[in-house]
């Protein structure tokens, strides 16, 4: 079958691409659009390193066909900061040393943003369950949770 032409919006800008029907959104982001911030850790939705927002909803881009992006609005890690200003979560991750190797970090940040968009005042337990789909092998999650809670507090103006 011929490639599919898809028009969509990525990180606030209009975007279009051609993809194979079986290509995942992750493949499209990485291989067609050079947005390599989303990572493939498993390709089966078990690690969360490829997390993106589709119409504001958190999904694994490895579990979505590129063709399904048609008519949606997508946010990737590359769209998280506001120009040169880091998102409070990004800043808190740096301050709390919430990353070691940094490979899971883009996915964790996108997922954390989705959490705070949905629930600006999560408990530690809620944050841990929300982020259970984002595997991190380096940190033991401790400093990630600290950073998320701290960013949430700051965003609430506390």
């Amino acid at each position: 079958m011929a490639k599919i032409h898809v028009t969509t919006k990525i990180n606030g800008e209009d975007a279009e691409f051609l993809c194979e029907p079986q290509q995942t959104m992750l493949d499209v982001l990485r291989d067609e659009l050079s947005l390599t911030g989303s990572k493939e850790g498993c390709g089966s939705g078990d690690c969360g390193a490829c997390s993106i927002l589709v119409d504001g909803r958190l999904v694994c881009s490895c579990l979505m066909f590129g063709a399904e992006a048609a008519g949606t609005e997508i946010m990737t890690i590359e769209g998280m900061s506001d120009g040169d200003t880091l998102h409070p979560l990004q800043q808190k991750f740096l301050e709390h040393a919430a990353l070691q190797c940094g490979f899971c970090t883009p996915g964790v940040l996108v997922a954390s943003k989705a959490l705070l968009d949905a629930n600006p005042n999560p408990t530690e337990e809620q944050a841990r369950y929300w982020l259970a789909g984002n595997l991190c092998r380096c940190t033991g999650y401790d400093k990630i949770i600290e950073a998320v809670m701290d960013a949430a507090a700051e965003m609430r103006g506390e």
Partner: protein
Amino acid sequence: MNYLGKDVELKVVGTRPIRPDGVEKVNGRASFGADVAVSGMIHAKVVRSPHAHARIKSIDTSKAEAVKGVQAVITGADLPDIPSEEAFVGEGPANFREMSHNVIARDKVLYDGHAVAAVAANTAAIAEEAARLVEVEYEVLPHVISVEEAMADGAPVLHEDMFTQGVDPKPTKASNIAKRVEFKLGDSNAAFAKADVIVERQYTTQPVHQAYIEPHACVVSYNPDGQAQIWCSSQGQFMVRAFCAKLLGMDIASIRVMPMEIGGGFGGKTLVYLEPLALALSKKSGRPVKMVMSREEVFRGSGPTSGGTINVKIGATKNGRIVAAECETILQAGAFPGSPVGPACMTAFACYDLADVTAFGYDVVSNRPKVAAYRAPGAPISTFAVESAVDELAQKLGMDPAEFRLINAAKNETKAAYGPTLKDIGYVETLEATVASEHYKSDLGEAPKGKRRGRGVASGFWFNIGGESSGATYVNEDGTVSVVSGNPDIGGSRASMGMMAAEVLGIDVSRVRTTVGDTASVGYSFLTGGSRVTFATGMAVTQSAEEVRDDMCRRAALIWEIDAEAVEWRDGAAHPAGENAGKFDPLSLSDIAAKSGRTGGPISAKCSINAQGAGPGYATHICDVEVDEETGHVAVLRYTAIQDVGKAIHPAYVEGQMQGGAVQGIGWALNEEYIYNKDGGLDNPGFLDYRVPVASDLPMIETQLIEVPNPRHPFGAKGVGEVPIVPPMAAVANAISSATGVRMPNLPMSPPRMRAALDAAKG
């Protein structure tokens, strides 16, 4: 020089600045192995064995080669046949011939997932399709998975030319036992007579994978002039260069390796898997070749660490002194020899001051992927057994387990069970901190109905290493400083390197930018592993910064026209000293940098050393659990890791190592394992059923840093990355025992096993 004295005021070391590579890692721009793209690049996939043990009768690549878009197909025949040669890598000695045969099988496949061919094509999808068309004819052979099967009489033998080393007389019959090792102090056998109480038990552990989130990935470009460039994520760019040169029969100077960001390694990226294949494919196709493993390939084709069977016997007097100890450790090496049985034996009793102790073990091959190093290789396995037995001994004696350890703890001047006398260690301090901690004194609280709570402690040891290391410091013309490290940064080492340089130079750390050099831009460095980088490469960087500092003093002296000895460096500036004090205004680093051309040229220093004397690390962990009696589920309620870290250069990243190591240990304790089916196929090659801990499984991991400085390091640093994975399995098991009265000698302590043990205890 060193900066250890009480009068030395450290301004940078010991603070928590933001890491230099931080912003790139939170905005998605950091470039990992799979993020590389070069002009004309094609993609390759590996064909892997579906059998655990089989003879390769033939490989027909013609159908794959006929697929449109396929550029090259290789098999084992495309790699040179290299002689048997031992080298010291990763967790211990390795043999390049075996490494080559592990990278791609020759006459036999030895495990499910063993590479047999590789296909390069215009797209990854074509390569994958074509790989399915490679026809391999196998003669399936009987296989062995467990060490017991592998050691049994009449077991199928993996290597017909392997005879057990380290036994007398030398065997005449090939077997799966690669070697026997032994460490002995005094006469443990006789000393058991002095014991009032003896604990003797068998323990088992399962192989666990390092489970870094980034799968192995590389791009390799082999040029017609015989020069090759490799972009990859690994624990050592120089390791990749050396191994590729060996395996492909190339000159080292013909290979340049660019270290990309590495998405976790934990020992698992101290070897090559894809790079030699990509090199061969690039050579054959004339195109740059990209290879990325799938998660399934990572589990099936790259090294986990060994599983083992450990027999422990420890005896103590009724007043709590251990008088005799023995430990037999049998480790799975996977398809080729080289399990960490040596370090497993050496570390088994390293926490204790013992006069009569024996530790011996066997390195056993079986039809599993060849093991790779994993954090403190070997130590967690033997320590799980020993620390469980020590706990049981304390229970039998009615003693507090931390106090019991204090009575027997290794101290300075203790003769270690593995031989040498210990020096500058902080084990006792971790135990004292344990006893004094709020956690240890706290009440466990009442468990809900049907659940039981308990607390356990366990300790651990790791040697830590130094080794060949290079670093460089460059003073830039605007007064900023560039530091180059020879080691891939796997957990924030660029931050600590920059901090040590900034401390020496007396400047703010924000003015120092640290990068990791490629193999052509920095001196040789042994790989990132063995908890060595902050210690060893930190020494090299510190010395290069000192050279730069001394050079700047000379430049200031030249400007002032006084003796260089009459200049002292403080607060980032040269000051006239002695009789010249106050005669000239200080010259800052920026002032001197601006005039560097006139005073002799660029200011820089490279330092290559072979760092020695890494201080050993000790840790004690406290774990509270809640056991669900009906389901056997074990929840970790509270966890504290206490560790002697020498001196924490960047405490946040030291804590991070402790927390990450502890959680990997909790995973090892509770759920992680390789599950094989009866055909010898790996049943759980994915994150769904290879169950690493997720965020909701865990409490906060509390940390306490004990700082007993290592006098051999300028700032007192000791390696910190490996020790934290050593105590957790026993800490969890001991907590379970205190909660339920049931001793869990077999890992993982998964719910079905826990429930079965509880049922058995009820009778």
